[in-house]
């Protein structure tokens, strides 16, 4: 089965609303990364997390290692937030990251 499962797979948001993306892990992991792939295909680093919470502007992410999940909260969604969000979990001990399949987000005016 999927080692890193993202939900939802796709999402449409009205501009100005809030939402949460989720990543569930079935592997032992100590660090998580979140990326945004923009429509041009570039991967931008959003968060690098050990267990805990980080916030950056309208984005906030939490990594709960005991319950094996991470969330990415988007507040006051803007058109430029559109793209595909990926989470990646480091497989403990071999320094390899396993990626989820992504959440495709479309923000509409």
């Amino acid at each position, binding site marked *: 089965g999927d080692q*890193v499962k993202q939900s939802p797979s796709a999402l449409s948001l009205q501009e100005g609303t809030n939402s949460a993306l989720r990543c569930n892990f079935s592997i032992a992991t*100590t*660090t998580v*990364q979140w*990326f945004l792939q923009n429509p041009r*295909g*570039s*991967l931008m*680093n959003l968060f*690098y997390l*050990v267990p805990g919470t980080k916030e950056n502007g309208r984005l906030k992410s939490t990594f709960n290692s005991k319950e094996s999940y991470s969330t990415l909260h988007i507040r006051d969604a803007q058109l430029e937030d559109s793209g595909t969000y*990926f989470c*990646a979990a*480091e497989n403990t001990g071999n*320094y*390899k*990251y*396993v*990626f*989820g*399949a*992504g959440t495709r987000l479309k923000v509409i005016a």
Partner: protein
Amino acid sequence: EAAVTQSPRNKVAVTGGKVTLSCNQTNNHNNMYWYRQDTGHGLRLIHYSYGAGSTEKGDIPDGYKASRPSQENFSLILELATPSQTSVYFCASGDWDRGFEQYFGPGTRLTVL
């Protein structure tokens, strides 16, 4: 300026031909990675390296070789390209002092006809 660069950015190859994708990083990171991205699969790890002279198999290494001649450069080699290797390829670098946080290049779109 961009710290991880890839060349070429686009490549069309013929079945059975040899393809080399190149990656250069100026982050002075020890680790470098090659991934491919296909619809519905996210990114999957092909090969990675712990430093100059080292190459390790990732999760989907079949049909690919890698070469790490220096700290800065990491190449992905397709000796006999097949249409199933049509994909977008991403290179990344990372280092243990940041928990191997990964920084990605812009990607190479490869089409094998």
